[in-house]
Protein backbone atom coordinates (compact mmCIF):
# COMPACT_ATOMS: atom_id res chain seq x y z
CA UNK A 1 0.00 0.00 0.00
CA UNK A 2 1.37 3.40 -0.99
CA UNK A 3 1.01 6.25 1.46
CA UNK A 4 2.00 9.89 1.69
CA UNK A 5 4.38 9.81 4.65
CA UNK A 6 5.75 13.34 4.62
CA UNK A 7 4.98 16.69 3.07
CA UNK A 8 6.84 19.97 2.91
CA UNK A 9 6.47 23.15 0.97
CA UNK A 10 7.22 26.78 0.31
CA UNK A 11 4.51 29.13 -0.86
CA UNK A 12 4.91 32.87 -1.28
CA UNK A 13 2.18 35.17 -2.52
CA UNK A 14 4.00 38.00 -4.26
CA UNK A 15 3.29 41.72 -4.42
CA UNK A 16 3.98 44.10 -7.28
CA UNK A 17 6.90 46.40 -6.57
CA UNK A 18 8.26 44.23 -3.74
CA UNK A 19 11.37 42.09 -3.98
CA UNK A 20 11.16 38.32 -3.79
CA UNK A 21 11.34 37.07 -0.20
CA UNK A 22 14.72 35.78 0.87
CA UNK A 23 15.05 32.00 1.09
CA UNK A 24 18.45 32.08 2.81
CA UNK A 25 17.35 31.31 6.37
CA UNK A 26 15.27 28.34 5.28
CA UNK A 27 18.01 27.04 3.04
CA UNK A 28 20.46 27.25 5.90
CA UNK A 29 18.24 24.91 7.89
CA UNK A 30 17.77 22.22 5.26
CA UNK A 31 20.95 22.24 3.16
CA UNK A 32 24.06 20.23 3.96
CA UNK A 33 26.21 22.78 2.18
CA UNK A 34 25.90 26.19 0.59
CA UNK A 35 25.47 25.55 -3.11
CA UNK A 36 27.07 28.18 -5.31
CA UNK A 37 25.79 29.49 -8.63
CA UNK A 38 22.30 28.16 -8.19
CA UNK A 39 19.24 30.18 -9.18
CA UNK A 40 15.93 30.73 -7.45
CA UNK A 41 14.26 27.73 -9.08
CA UNK A 42 16.95 25.47 -7.62
CA UNK A 43 16.72 27.21 -4.25
CA UNK A 44 12.97 26.71 -4.15
CA UNK A 45 13.43 23.03 -4.99
CA UNK A 46 16.07 22.63 -2.29
CA UNK A 47 13.94 24.33 0.34
CA UNK A 48 10.68 22.51 -0.38
CA UNK A 49 12.29 19.08 -0.67
CA UNK A 50 14.44 19.75 2.38
CA UNK A 51 11.39 20.56 4.47
CA UNK A 52 9.67 17.40 3.25
CA UNK A 53 12.67 15.24 4.15
CA UNK A 54 13.48 17.09 7.39
CA UNK A 55 14.14 14.77 10.32
CA UNK A 56 14.45 11.61 8.27
CA UNK A 57 17.07 9.91 6.15
CA UNK A 58 15.75 8.91 2.77
CA UNK A 59 16.86 5.71 1.10
CA UNK A 60 19.71 6.45 -1.28
CA UNK A 61 17.73 4.85 -4.10
CA UNK A 62 14.61 6.94 -3.43
CA UNK A 63 13.20 8.09 -6.75
CA UNK A 64 13.02 11.83 -7.36
CA UNK A 65 10.11 13.16 -9.44
CA UNK A 66 10.36 16.91 -9.98
CA UNK A 67 8.13 18.90 -12.28
CA UNK A 68 7.05 22.38 -13.25
CA UNK A 69 4.80 24.16 -15.68
CA UNK A 70 7.30 26.89 -16.58
CA UNK A 71 10.59 25.54 -15.25
CA UNK A 72 13.69 27.53 -14.32
CA UNK A 73 12.63 30.86 -15.77
CA UNK A 74 15.25 33.15 -14.22
CA UNK A 75 18.08 31.06 -15.71
CA UNK A 76 16.44 30.99 -19.14
CA UNK A 77 15.76 34.73 -19.03
CA UNK A 78 19.34 35.52 -18.04
CA UNK A 79 20.62 33.31 -20.85
CA UNK A 80 18.40 34.97 -23.46
CA UNK A 81 19.41 38.43 -22.32
CA UNK A 82 23.10 37.56 -22.56
CA UNK A 83 22.68 35.89 -25.92
CA UNK A 84 20.18 38.07 -27.76
CA UNK A 85 20.22 41.47 -26.07
CA UNK A 86 23.93 41.57 -25.14
CA UNK A 87 25.09 39.41 -28.12
CA UNK A 88 27.41 37.33 -25.94
CA UNK A 89 27.77 33.64 -25.25
CA UNK A 90 25.69 32.65 -22.20
CA UNK A 91 27.51 32.28 -18.91
CA UNK A 92 28.08 28.57 -18.30
CA UNK A 93 26.25 28.39 -14.98
CA UNK A 94 23.26 30.29 -16.38
CA UNK A 95 23.12 27.88 -19.30
CA UNK A 96 23.37 24.80 -17.07
CA UNK A 97 20.64 26.16 -14.81
CA UNK A 98 18.28 26.32 -17.77
CA UNK A 99 18.07 22.53 -17.71
CA UNK A 100 14.98 21.34 -15.91
CA UNK A 101 16.87 18.58 -14.15
CA UNK A 102 19.64 20.78 -12.74
CA UNK A 103 17.36 21.39 -9.75
CA UNK A 104 16.88 17.63 -9.39
CA UNK A 105 20.64 17.20 -9.35
CA UNK A 106 21.04 19.62 -6.42
CA UNK A 107 18.13 18.07 -4.51
CA UNK A 108 19.70 14.64 -4.96
CA UNK A 109 23.08 15.94 -3.84
CA UNK A 110 21.59 17.62 -0.80
CA UNK A 111 19.57 14.58 0.29
CA UNK A 112 22.15 11.94 -0.61
CA UNK A 113 20.06 10.35 -3.38
CA UNK A 114 21.33 8.50 -6.44
CA UNK A 115 18.21 6.75 -7.67
CA UNK A 116 16.03 7.65 -10.61
CA UNK A 117 15.88 11.43 -11.00
CA UNK A 118 13.19 12.74 -13.34
CA UNK A 119 11.81 16.07 -14.47
CA UNK A 120 8.30 15.78 -15.93
CA UNK A 121 5.97 18.56 -17.01
CA UNK A 122 2.34 18.78 -18.07
CA UNK A 123 0.81 22.17 -18.60
CA UNK A 124 -1.30 23.06 -15.60
CA UNK A 125 -1.14 19.53 -14.24
CA UNK A 126 2.50 18.67 -13.66
CA UNK A 127 1.74 17.35 -10.19
CA UNK A 128 -0.71 14.87 -11.66
CA UNK A 129 1.82 13.70 -14.25
CA UNK A 130 4.48 13.31 -11.56
CA UNK A 131 2.18 11.38 -9.26
CA UNK A 132 1.07 9.12 -12.09
CA UNK A 133 4.69 8.31 -13.00
CA UNK A 134 5.76 7.83 -9.38
CA UNK A 135 2.82 5.59 -8.51
CA UNK A 136 3.41 3.44 -11.58
CA UNK A 137 7.05 2.99 -10.55
CA UNK A 138 6.15 2.31 -6.90
CA UNK A 139 3.56 -0.29 -7.86
CA UNK A 140 5.99 -1.96 -10.26
CA UNK A 141 8.73 -2.06 -7.64
CA UNK A 142 11.04 0.20 -9.65
CA UNK A 143 11.34 2.39 -6.53
CA UNK A 144 10.22 1.90 -2.92
CA UNK A 145 10.24 5.59 -2.00
CA UNK A 146 9.35 8.49 -4.26
CA UNK A 147 10.00 12.14 -3.48
CA UNK A 148 7.57 14.07 -5.66
CA UNK A 149 7.68 17.82 -6.04
CA UNK A 150 6.36 20.60 -8.22
CA UNK A 151 8.21 23.92 -8.30
CA UNK A 152 7.05 27.19 -9.84
CA UNK A 153 9.33 30.19 -9.86
CA UNK A 154 8.15 33.76 -10.33
CA UNK A 155 10.40 36.35 -11.90
CA UNK A 156 10.42 40.11 -11.52
CA UNK A 157 8.92 42.35 -12.63
CA UNK A 158 5.64 40.55 -12.00
CA UNK A 159 3.96 42.44 -14.84
CA UNK A 160 6.30 40.67 -17.28
CA UNK A 161 5.77 37.39 -15.49
CA UNK A 162 2.02 37.72 -15.99
CA UNK A 163 2.35 38.71 -19.66
CA UNK A 164 4.65 35.74 -20.26
CA UNK A 165 1.94 33.42 -19.00
CA UNK A 166 -1.03 35.24 -20.45
CA UNK A 167 -2.39 36.09 -17.01
CA UNK A 168 -4.72 39.05 -16.40
CA UNK A 169 -2.85 42.15 -15.19
CA UNK A 170 -4.58 42.10 -11.81
CA UNK A 171 -4.19 38.39 -11.09
CA UNK A 172 -2.41 37.42 -7.87
CA UNK A 173 0.94 35.73 -8.49
CA UNK A 174 2.74 33.21 -6.32
CA UNK A 175 5.86 31.08 -6.27
CA UNK A 176 6.00 27.69 -4.67
CA UNK A 177 7.76 24.38 -4.10
CA UNK A 178 5.51 21.57 -2.94
CA UNK A 179 6.71 18.09 -2.06
CA UNK A 180 5.34 14.74 -0.98
CA UNK A 181 7.17 11.63 0.09
CA UNK A 182 5.42 8.47 -1.09
CA UNK A 183 6.35 5.11 0.36
CA UNK A 184 5.41 1.57 -0.48
CA UNK A 185 4.57 -0.64 2.51
CA UNK A 186 4.12 2.31 4.87
CA UNK A 187 1.62 1.79 7.67
CA UNK A 188 0.81 5.42 8.41
CA UNK A 189 -0.08 8.39 6.24
CA UNK A 190 -2.69 9.12 3.61
CA UNK A 191 -3.29 6.26 1.22
CA UNK A 192 -2.71 7.11 -2.43
CA UNK A 193 -3.31 4.89 -5.45
CA UNK A 194 -2.74 5.37 -9.14
CA UNK A 195 -6.48 5.36 -9.73
CA UNK A 196 -6.81 8.42 -7.49
CA UNK A 197 -4.76 10.52 -9.86
CA UNK A 198 -7.18 11.67 -12.48
CA UNK A 199 -6.23 12.80 -15.92
CA UNK A 200 -7.10 16.25 -17.13
CA UNK A 201 -5.60 18.02 -20.07
CA UNK A 202 -5.72 21.76 -19.86
CA UNK A 203 -6.34 24.30 -22.54
CA UNK A 204 -3.81 26.83 -23.71
CA UNK A 205 -5.71 29.60 -21.98
CA UNK A 206 -5.06 28.17 -18.54
CA UNK A 207 -2.02 29.64 -16.81
CA UNK A 208 0.18 26.67 -16.10
CA UNK A 209 2.39 27.88 -13.30
CA UNK A 210 -0.38 29.59 -11.41
CA UNK A 211 -2.54 26.51 -11.60
CA UNK A 212 0.24 24.15 -10.54
CA UNK A 213 1.38 26.19 -7.62
CA UNK A 214 -2.00 27.17 -6.22
CA UNK A 215 -3.37 23.66 -6.56
CA UNK A 216 -0.31 22.13 -4.97
CA UNK A 217 -0.30 24.69 -2.16
CA UNK A 218 -3.91 23.87 -1.32
CA UNK A 219 -3.05 20.20 -1.29
CA UNK A 220 -0.12 20.80 1.04
CA UNK A 221 -2.13 22.86 3.47
CA UNK A 222 -4.73 20.13 3.78
CA UNK A 223 -2.14 17.42 4.20
CA UNK A 224 -0.25 19.41 6.80
CA UNK A 225 -3.48 19.80 8.76
CA UNK A 226 -4.07 16.06 8.56
CA UNK A 227 -7.23 16.55 6.51
CA UNK A 228 -8.44 13.95 4.06
CA UNK A 229 -10.81 15.08 1.37
CA UNK A 230 -11.37 15.36 -2.30
CA UNK A 231 -9.17 18.19 -3.37
CA UNK A 232 -10.26 20.76 -5.89
CA UNK A 233 -7.67 22.84 -7.63
CA UNK A 234 -7.40 26.57 -7.17
CA UNK A 235 -8.63 27.57 -10.54
CA UNK A 236 -11.00 30.48 -10.01
CA UNK A 237 -13.09 29.65 -13.06
CA UNK A 238 -13.44 25.96 -13.50
CA UNK A 239 -12.34 24.22 -10.33
CA UNK A 240 -12.01 20.57 -11.16
CA UNK A 241 -10.67 17.73 -9.15
CA UNK A 242 -6.90 17.48 -9.00
CA UNK A 243 -6.81 14.17 -7.25
CA UNK A 244 -8.32 12.73 -4.16
CA UNK A 245 -6.97 10.45 -1.51
CA UNK A 246 -8.30 8.27 1.21
CA UNK A 247 -7.23 8.41 4.85
Amino acid at each position, binding site marked *: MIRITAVGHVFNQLQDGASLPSLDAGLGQVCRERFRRVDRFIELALLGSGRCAEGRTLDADCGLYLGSGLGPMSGVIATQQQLIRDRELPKPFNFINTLGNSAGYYVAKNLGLHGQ*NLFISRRGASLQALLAAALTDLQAGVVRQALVGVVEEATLPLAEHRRRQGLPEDMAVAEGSHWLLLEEHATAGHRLEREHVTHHETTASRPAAFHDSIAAAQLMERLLKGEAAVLADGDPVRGWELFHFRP
Partner: protein
Amino acid sequence: MAAVAIRGVGLSCALGRDVAACAAALLAGGKPPARVALPGLAEPVQVAYYRIDDGSGLFDPGRFARLLPGVVQDAVADLSASELSTLPLFIGSSCFSIGQSETGYAGALARAASDTYPMPHCGYDWLAGLVRQAIGGGGESFTYNTACTSSANALLGACRALRAGRHRHALVLGAELANLTTLSGFSGLQLLADQVRPFEAGREGLVLGEGIAAVLLSVEGAAGAMRLHDGASNCDTFSVTTADPEGMRVAEVLRQALAQAQLKPEAIQGIKAHGTGTPTGDLAEASGLRKVFGTLPPFSVLKPYIGHTLGACGVIELVMYAGALAQGRLPARLSPVAADPQLGVQPLGVSRSAPPGYYLLNQFGFGGNNAVLVLEKPA
Protein backbone atom coordinates in the same frame (compact mmCIF):
# COMPACT_ATOMS: atom_id res chain seq x y z
CA MET B 1 6.97 -8.59 -16.76
CA ALA B 2 6.36 -8.69 -20.48
CA ALA B 3 8.32 -6.59 -22.89
CA VAL B 4 6.57 -4.08 -25.12
CA ALA B 5 6.78 -4.13 -28.89
CA ILE B 6 8.02 -1.38 -31.16
CA ARG B 7 5.07 -1.19 -33.52
CA GLY B 8 5.81 1.94 -35.50
CA VAL B 9 8.65 4.38 -36.03
CA GLY B 10 9.26 7.73 -37.68
CA LEU B 11 12.52 9.62 -38.11
CA SER B 12 14.07 12.77 -39.46
CA CYS B 13 17.78 13.37 -38.87
CA ALA B 14 20.96 14.42 -40.63
CA LEU B 15 21.01 11.13 -42.55
CA GLY B 16 17.53 11.57 -43.96
CA ARG B 17 13.90 10.87 -43.43
CA ASP B 18 13.40 7.16 -44.06
CA VAL B 19 14.41 4.79 -41.25
CA ALA B 20 15.73 2.00 -43.48
CA ALA B 21 17.63 4.47 -45.66
CA CYS B 22 19.11 6.20 -42.58
CA ALA B 23 20.18 2.86 -41.12
CA ALA B 24 21.77 1.93 -44.44
CA ALA B 25 23.57 5.28 -44.56
CA LEU B 26 24.74 4.71 -40.99
CA LEU B 27 26.13 1.30 -41.90
CA ALA B 28 27.83 2.86 -44.93
CA GLY B 29 29.69 5.43 -42.84
CA GLY B 30 27.52 8.55 -42.91
CA LYS B 31 28.75 12.00 -43.88
CA PRO B 32 30.67 14.81 -42.17
CA PRO B 33 28.90 17.61 -40.28
CA ALA B 34 28.18 21.04 -41.75
CA ARG B 35 29.74 24.29 -40.52
CA VAL B 36 27.23 26.66 -39.00
CA ALA B 37 27.68 30.34 -38.11
CA LEU B 38 25.79 31.49 -35.01
CA PRO B 39 24.00 34.71 -35.96
CA GLY B 40 23.74 37.82 -33.85
CA LEU B 41 26.80 37.44 -31.64
CA ALA B 42 29.26 40.31 -31.29
CA GLU B 43 32.19 37.90 -31.80
CA PRO B 44 31.65 35.48 -34.72
CA VAL B 45 31.28 31.85 -33.69
CA GLN B 46 31.16 28.85 -36.01
CA VAL B 47 30.41 25.30 -34.97
CA ALA B 48 30.24 21.90 -36.64
CA TYR B 49 26.67 20.63 -36.75
CA TYR B 50 24.72 17.66 -38.11
CA ARG B 51 21.64 19.36 -39.52
CA ILE B 52 18.49 18.08 -41.15
CA ASP B 53 18.66 18.95 -44.83
CA ASP B 54 15.18 20.41 -45.20
CA GLY B 55 16.05 23.43 -47.29
CA SER B 56 15.10 25.96 -44.61
CA GLY B 57 17.19 28.32 -42.56
CA LEU B 58 18.66 26.49 -39.59
CA PHE B 59 17.05 28.80 -37.03
CA ASP B 60 13.72 29.17 -38.83
CA PRO B 61 11.14 28.88 -36.02
CA GLY B 62 8.65 27.20 -38.34
CA ARG B 63 10.74 24.04 -38.76
CA PHE B 64 9.21 22.12 -35.85
CA ALA B 65 5.71 22.61 -37.25
CA ARG B 66 6.88 21.45 -40.68
CA LEU B 67 9.11 18.51 -39.68
CA LEU B 68 7.37 16.97 -36.69
CA PRO B 69 3.96 15.98 -38.12
CA GLY B 70 5.29 13.59 -40.76
CA VAL B 71 7.57 11.83 -38.30
CA VAL B 72 4.77 11.31 -35.80
CA GLN B 73 2.27 10.25 -38.46
CA ASP B 74 4.71 7.61 -39.75
CA ALA B 75 4.91 6.09 -36.27
CA VAL B 76 1.15 5.87 -35.68
CA ALA B 77 0.13 5.02 -39.24
CA ASP B 78 -1.70 1.80 -38.36
CA LEU B 79 -3.69 3.09 -35.37
CA SER B 80 -7.39 3.87 -35.70
CA ALA B 81 -8.87 7.28 -34.96
CA SER B 82 -10.34 5.85 -31.79
CA GLU B 83 -6.95 4.57 -30.64
CA LEU B 84 -5.32 7.89 -31.51
CA SER B 85 -7.87 9.83 -29.49
CA THR B 86 -6.61 8.42 -26.20
CA LEU B 87 -3.01 7.68 -27.16
CA PRO B 88 -0.75 8.75 -24.26
CA LEU B 89 2.19 10.94 -25.23
CA PHE B 90 5.66 10.58 -23.70
CA ILE B 91 7.90 13.35 -24.95
CA GLY B 92 11.59 13.97 -24.36
CA SER B 93 13.43 17.07 -25.47
CA SER B 94 16.01 19.55 -24.30
CA CYS B 95 14.97 22.47 -26.48
CA PHE B 96 11.14 22.59 -26.58
CA SER B 97 10.03 26.03 -27.81
CA ILE B 98 13.23 27.90 -27.01
CA GLY B 99 13.79 28.67 -30.70
CA GLN B 100 10.37 30.35 -30.90
CA SER B 101 11.24 32.39 -27.84
CA GLU B 102 14.57 33.47 -29.28
CA THR B 103 12.92 34.63 -32.49
CA GLY B 104 10.17 36.49 -30.66
CA TYR B 105 12.58 38.26 -28.33
CA ALA B 106 15.04 39.17 -31.10
CA GLY B 107 12.19 40.49 -33.23
CA ALA B 108 10.85 42.64 -30.41
CA LEU B 109 14.32 44.04 -29.70
CA ALA B 110 14.80 44.87 -33.37
CA ARG B 111 11.46 46.67 -33.45
CA ALA B 112 12.28 48.43 -30.16
CA ALA B 113 8.81 47.37 -29.06
CA SER B 114 7.63 48.83 -25.77
CA ASP B 115 6.68 45.41 -24.37
CA THR B 116 10.02 43.72 -25.10
CA TYR B 117 10.89 41.02 -22.61
CA PRO B 118 12.87 37.78 -22.82
CA MET B 119 11.08 34.45 -23.12
CA PRO B 120 7.89 35.78 -24.68
CA HIS B 121 7.01 32.17 -25.53
CA CYS B 122 7.46 29.46 -22.96
CA GLY B 123 6.11 26.08 -22.06
CA TYR B 124 7.29 22.52 -22.09
CA ASP B 125 3.88 21.45 -23.34
CA TRP B 126 4.27 23.08 -26.72
CA LEU B 127 5.60 19.90 -28.34
CA ALA B 128 2.67 17.89 -26.98
CA GLY B 129 0.37 20.40 -28.69
CA LEU B 130 2.14 19.89 -32.02
CA VAL B 131 1.81 16.12 -31.65
CA ARG B 132 -1.90 16.42 -30.87
CA GLN B 133 -2.43 18.48 -34.01
CA ALA B 134 -0.42 16.02 -36.08
CA ILE B 135 -2.35 12.93 -35.01
CA GLY B 136 -5.73 14.54 -34.44
CA GLY B 137 -5.90 13.15 -30.93
CA GLY B 138 -3.73 12.27 -27.99
CA GLY B 139 -4.43 11.36 -24.38
CA GLU B 140 -2.50 12.30 -21.27
CA SER B 141 0.97 13.70 -21.80
CA PHE B 142 4.25 13.34 -19.95
CA THR B 143 6.97 15.75 -21.05
CA TYR B 144 10.47 14.83 -19.84
CA ASN B 145 13.37 17.23 -19.50
CA THR B 146 16.37 15.42 -18.08
CA ALA B 147 19.00 16.82 -20.45
CA CYS B 148 20.46 14.18 -22.80
CA THR B 149 18.47 11.34 -21.21
CA SER B 150 15.11 13.08 -21.74
CA SER B 151 13.67 10.81 -24.41
CA ALA B 152 15.33 7.70 -22.95
CA ASN B 153 13.49 8.41 -19.71
CA ALA B 154 10.32 9.02 -21.75
CA LEU B 155 10.78 5.54 -23.26
CA LEU B 156 11.16 4.04 -19.78
CA GLY B 157 8.05 5.88 -18.57
CA ALA B 158 5.99 4.68 -21.54
CA CYS B 159 7.26 1.13 -21.23
CA ARG B 160 6.30 0.99 -17.55
CA ALA B 161 2.86 2.51 -18.13
CA LEU B 162 2.17 -0.17 -20.76
CA ARG B 163 3.51 -2.98 -18.60
CA ALA B 164 1.32 -1.78 -15.73
CA GLY B 165 -1.71 -2.17 -17.99
CA ARG B 166 -2.55 1.54 -18.10
CA HIS B 167 -2.63 1.66 -21.90
CA ARG B 168 -2.36 -0.61 -24.94
CA HIS B 169 -0.25 1.82 -26.96
CA ALA B 170 1.98 4.79 -26.20
CA LEU B 171 3.71 7.29 -28.46
CA VAL B 172 7.23 8.33 -27.48
CA LEU B 173 8.82 11.34 -29.13
CA GLY B 174 12.39 12.59 -29.06
CA ALA B 175 12.80 16.05 -30.57
CA GLU B 176 15.72 18.44 -30.87
CA LEU B 177 16.11 21.17 -33.47
CA ALA B 178 18.80 23.80 -33.76
CA ASN B 179 18.49 26.85 -31.55
CA LEU B 180 20.92 29.57 -30.52
CA THR B 181 20.69 28.91 -26.80
CA THR B 182 21.90 25.34 -27.11
CA LEU B 183 24.62 25.93 -29.68
CA SER B 184 25.98 29.02 -27.92
CA GLY B 185 25.63 27.42 -24.48
CA PHE B 186 27.71 24.40 -25.46
CA SER B 187 30.15 26.67 -27.25
CA GLY B 188 30.52 28.69 -24.04
CA LEU B 189 31.19 25.50 -22.11
CA GLN B 190 34.00 24.75 -24.59
CA LEU B 191 32.71 21.24 -25.15
CA LEU B 192 32.43 21.39 -28.94
CA ALA B 193 34.84 19.92 -31.47
CA ASP B 194 35.04 19.91 -35.27
CA GLN B 195 34.81 16.13 -35.40
CA VAL B 196 33.29 13.65 -32.99
CA ARG B 197 35.61 10.71 -32.28
CA PRO B 198 34.14 8.70 -29.40
CA PHE B 199 36.54 6.60 -27.33
CA GLU B 200 39.51 7.63 -29.50
CA ALA B 201 42.83 8.97 -28.32
CA GLY B 202 42.93 12.75 -28.73
CA ARG B 203 39.17 13.14 -28.83
CA GLU B 204 38.30 16.76 -28.21
CA GLY B 205 34.59 16.98 -27.65
CA LEU B 206 31.18 16.59 -29.15
CA VAL B 207 29.45 17.71 -32.30
CA LEU B 208 25.81 18.57 -31.86
CA GLY B 209 23.04 17.51 -34.20
CA GLU B 210 19.31 17.76 -34.64
CA GLY B 211 16.58 15.24 -35.24
CA ILE B 212 13.06 14.13 -34.48
CA ALA B 213 12.08 10.51 -33.94
CA ALA B 214 8.89 8.85 -32.79
CA VAL B 215 8.24 5.32 -31.60
CA LEU B 216 4.88 3.68 -31.12
CA LEU B 217 5.10 1.13 -28.30
CA SER B 218 2.39 -1.48 -27.92
CA VAL B 219 1.61 -4.30 -25.54
CA GLU B 220 1.21 -6.54 -28.57
CA GLY B 221 3.48 -6.61 -31.59
CA ALA B 222 3.80 -8.45 -34.85
CA ALA B 223 6.08 -11.47 -35.04
CA GLY B 224 9.60 -10.25 -35.52
CA ALA B 225 8.99 -6.84 -33.94
CA MET B 226 11.80 -5.46 -31.79
CA ARG B 227 10.86 -5.40 -28.12
CA LEU B 228 11.78 -3.07 -25.29
CA HIS B 229 12.43 -4.67 -21.91
CA ASP B 230 12.37 -1.49 -19.86
CA GLY B 231 15.78 -0.58 -18.39
CA ALA B 232 16.99 1.65 -15.57
CA SER B 233 17.76 5.24 -14.74
CA ASN B 234 19.77 6.82 -11.93
CA CYS B 235 21.60 9.99 -10.87
CA ASP B 236 25.29 10.59 -10.28
CA THR B 237 25.90 13.59 -8.03
CA PHE B 238 29.63 13.74 -8.80
CA SER B 239 29.19 16.98 -10.76
CA VAL B 240 26.35 18.72 -12.58
CA THR B 241 28.33 18.78 -15.84
CA THR B 242 31.14 16.24 -15.54
CA ALA B 243 30.84 12.48 -15.26
CA ASP B 244 32.65 10.55 -12.54
CA PRO B 245 35.77 9.11 -14.23
CA GLU B 246 35.43 5.97 -12.11
CA GLY B 247 32.02 5.29 -13.70
CA MET B 248 30.49 3.95 -10.48
CA ARG B 249 26.96 5.11 -11.22
CA VAL B 250 27.31 4.11 -14.87
CA ALA B 251 28.13 0.59 -13.72
CA GLU B 252 25.26 0.71 -11.26
CA VAL B 253 22.66 1.71 -13.85
CA LEU B 254 23.93 -0.95 -16.26
CA ARG B 255 23.57 -3.60 -13.53
CA GLN B 256 20.09 -2.29 -12.64
CA ALA B 257 18.98 -2.50 -16.25
CA LEU B 258 20.27 -6.06 -16.55
CA ALA B 259 18.66 -7.09 -13.26
CA GLN B 260 15.37 -5.54 -14.19
CA ALA B 261 15.33 -7.54 -17.44
CA GLN B 262 16.57 -10.61 -15.55
CA LEU B 263 19.63 -10.86 -17.76
CA LYS B 264 23.26 -11.65 -17.07
CA PRO B 265 25.97 -9.60 -18.80
CA GLU B 266 26.83 -12.61 -20.99
CA ALA B 267 23.38 -12.41 -22.57
CA ILE B 268 24.11 -9.04 -24.16
CA GLN B 269 24.90 -9.26 -27.88
CA GLY B 270 25.82 -5.63 -28.39
CA ILE B 271 25.74 -2.17 -26.89
CA LYS B 272 24.83 1.19 -28.33
CA ALA B 273 27.18 3.40 -26.32
CA HIS B 274 26.38 7.01 -25.47
CA GLY B 275 29.83 7.93 -26.80
CA THR B 276 29.76 11.72 -26.92
CA GLY B 277 33.46 12.07 -27.71
CA THR B 278 34.22 14.23 -24.68
CA PRO B 279 37.34 13.16 -22.78
CA THR B 280 35.58 12.73 -19.43
CA GLY B 281 32.26 11.40 -20.69
CA ASP B 282 33.83 8.55 -22.64
CA LEU B 283 36.17 7.78 -19.75
CA ALA B 284 33.24 7.43 -17.35
CA GLU B 285 31.31 5.24 -19.78
CA ALA B 286 34.33 3.02 -20.48
CA SER B 287 35.02 2.65 -16.75
CA GLY B 288 31.41 1.70 -16.07
CA LEU B 289 31.29 -0.81 -18.93
CA ARG B 290 34.53 -2.48 -17.80
CA LYS B 291 33.17 -2.89 -14.28
CA VAL B 292 30.09 -4.76 -15.49
CA PHE B 293 31.37 -6.82 -18.40
CA GLY B 294 34.21 -9.30 -18.10
CA THR B 295 34.32 -9.48 -21.86
CA LEU B 296 32.78 -6.42 -23.39
CA PRO B 297 30.24 -7.16 -26.14
CA PRO B 298 30.77 -5.30 -29.43
CA PHE B 299 29.69 -1.72 -28.92
CA SER B 300 28.70 0.90 -31.46
CA VAL B 301 28.66 4.68 -31.47
CA LEU B 302 26.15 6.63 -33.55
CA LYS B 303 27.08 10.23 -32.87
CA PRO B 304 29.78 10.34 -35.60
CA TYR B 305 26.91 9.95 -38.09
CA ILE B 306 24.09 12.10 -36.71
CA GLY B 307 25.74 14.20 -34.01
CA HIS B 308 24.66 14.45 -30.40
CA THR B 309 20.93 15.12 -30.57
CA LEU B 310 20.81 15.82 -26.82
CA GLY B 311 17.37 15.19 -25.29
CA ALA B 312 16.20 13.44 -28.44
CA CYS B 313 19.09 10.97 -28.65
CA GLY B 314 17.33 8.25 -26.64
CA VAL B 315 14.58 7.76 -29.24
CA ILE B 316 16.62 8.73 -32.30
CA GLU B 317 19.46 6.33 -31.51
CA LEU B 318 17.00 3.58 -30.57
CA VAL B 319 15.36 3.94 -33.98
CA MET B 320 18.71 4.05 -35.77
CA TYR B 321 20.23 1.13 -33.88
CA ALA B 322 17.09 -1.00 -34.18
CA GLY B 323 17.04 -0.14 -37.88
CA ALA B 324 20.59 -1.45 -38.27
CA LEU B 325 19.76 -4.59 -36.26
CA ALA B 326 16.75 -5.14 -38.52
CA GLN B 327 19.16 -5.12 -41.46
CA GLY B 328 21.17 -7.75 -39.62
CA ARG B 329 24.22 -5.59 -38.93
CA LEU B 330 25.92 -3.88 -35.99
CA PRO B 331 27.01 -0.33 -36.80
CA ALA B 332 30.78 0.17 -36.84
CA ARG B 333 33.28 3.00 -37.20
CA LEU B 334 34.43 2.57 -40.75
CA SER B 335 37.15 5.21 -40.52
CA PRO B 336 40.42 4.34 -38.77
CA VAL B 337 40.14 4.60 -34.98
CA ALA B 338 43.10 5.61 -32.78
CA ALA B 339 42.59 3.61 -29.59
CA ASP B 340 42.90 5.35 -26.24
CA PRO B 341 44.89 3.05 -23.95
CA GLN B 342 43.46 4.80 -20.87
CA LEU B 343 39.97 3.59 -21.75
CA GLY B 344 40.74 -0.06 -22.42
CA VAL B 345 37.75 -0.34 -24.73
CA GLN B 346 37.21 0.39 -28.39
CA PRO B 347 34.06 0.74 -30.48
CA LEU B 348 33.41 -1.83 -33.16
CA GLY B 349 35.67 -1.10 -36.13
CA VAL B 350 34.26 -3.54 -38.67
CA SER B 351 30.56 -4.14 -39.07
CA ARG B 352 29.45 -7.60 -38.12
CA SER B 353 26.21 -9.52 -38.10
CA ALA B 354 23.65 -8.76 -35.41
CA PRO B 355 22.27 -12.00 -33.98
CA PRO B 356 18.90 -12.29 -32.24
CA GLY B 357 19.11 -11.51 -28.54
CA TYR B 358 19.45 -8.62 -26.14
CA TYR B 359 21.11 -5.25 -26.65
CA LEU B 360 21.77 -2.33 -24.32
CA LEU B 361 21.43 1.34 -25.23
CA ASN B 362 23.24 3.86 -23.03
CA GLN B 363 22.31 7.50 -22.52
CA PHE B 364 23.97 9.87 -20.05
CA GLY B 365 23.50 13.57 -19.46
CA PHE B 366 24.09 16.76 -17.51
CA GLY B 367 22.72 16.72 -14.02
CA GLY B 368 24.28 13.27 -13.57
CA ASN B 369 21.35 11.61 -15.30
CA ASN B 370 22.02 8.08 -16.58
CA ALA B 371 19.57 5.85 -18.45
CA VAL B 372 20.00 2.41 -19.99
CA LEU B 373 17.44 0.68 -22.23
CA VAL B 374 17.20 -3.08 -22.91
CA LEU B 375 16.21 -3.97 -26.46
CA GLU B 376 15.44 -7.46 -27.79
CA LYS B 377 15.88 -8.48 -31.37
CA PRO B 378 13.65 -11.53 -31.76
CA ALA B 379 14.78 -14.73 -33.47
